[in-house]
């Protein structure tokens, strides 16, 4: 299977994401002007500061040509994974519910922490077990997940809250400790912490690899079917 990793002006984690993807499949970078996803079976929208985070994080990247192609791909059931700024972009593009606001403590949070797998039945978490803790770094200024309560109740009932911050960690003020959510159909996933920085024993944890392995398995299963 092949991953396509987007690159916007201001992206900074696309190379780590590309290298993480290559541990589990083929991968290539897609420029923000590309309208063609070049046969990718899964798309990664990486972290960084697309378009300088002007206006609101993710607000401008959403209008790039490649995002039109990604939206079509997602509507057709393709797997799309947004990390950090990529999560913000997917929310702004209405491919994911909710929004990400500046951290409640007004500080950039940068540290290794645990997230708990709440739903292991998604295409992005199938290589994990429910309740498993993954050690993954987080580094962001605007990671406070917000959605109105009624929307959150619906998402929880529908299994869309895939990952939550473990208790006792640094707090960005996220509603219900939400770290990562899927769309209603389950084929689009956004996560604030960075699994692409946790795939090599050299950096202390390989837990992030489980998410990329899950995507590779899911995409391979779809391609084979």
């Amino acid at each position, binding site marked *: 299977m092949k991953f396509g990793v987007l690159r916007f002006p201001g992206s900074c984690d696309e190379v780590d994401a590309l290298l993480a993807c290559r541990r589990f499949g083929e991968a290539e970078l897609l420029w923000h002007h590309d309208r063609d996803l070049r046969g990718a079976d899964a798309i990664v929208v990486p972290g960084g500061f697309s378009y300088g985070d002007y*206006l*609101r994080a993710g*607000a401008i990247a959403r209008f790039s040509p490649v995002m039109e192609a990604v939206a079509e791909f997602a509507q057709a059931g393709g797997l799309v994974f947004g990390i950090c700024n990529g999560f913000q972009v997917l929310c*702004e593009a209405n491919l994911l519910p909710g*929004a990400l*606001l500046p951290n409640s403590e007004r500080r950039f949070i940068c540290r290794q922490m645990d997230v708990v797998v709440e739903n292991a039945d998604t295409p992005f978490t199938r290589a994990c077990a429910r309740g498993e803790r993954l050690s993954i770094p987080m580094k962001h200024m605007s990671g*406070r997940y917000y959605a109105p309560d009624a929307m959150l109740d619906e998402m929880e009932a529908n299994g869309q809250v895939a990952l939550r911050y473990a208790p006792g960690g640094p707090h960005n003020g996220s509603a219900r400790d939400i770290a990562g959510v899927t769309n209603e159909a389950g084929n689009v996933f956004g996560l604030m912490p960075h699994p692409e920085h946790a795939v090599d024993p050299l950096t202390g944890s390989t837990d992030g690899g489980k998410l990329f392995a899950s995507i590779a398995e899911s995409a391979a299963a779809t391609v084979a079917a």
Partner: protein
Amino acid sequence: MRARVLIRPKEGILDPQGQAVERALPALGFEGIEHVHVGRMVELDVEDASQLDRLCEQLLANPLIEDYEVELLEHA
């Protein structure tokens, strides 16, 4: 036509920027100031003002978390 768009955090959504400003005020000797909220202002020239609401909904504001109001100014 000159237009001014004011965008602010929706009522009830935590506004850490506003809080930071509010907390800094007593140290500077300003008292009796509360409920500080920080938003954004966008000024622009527009030929057809009827498209401004759509512009705000789609780009300038995120309607899930922000309220906006459009003010039309005199011809520049």
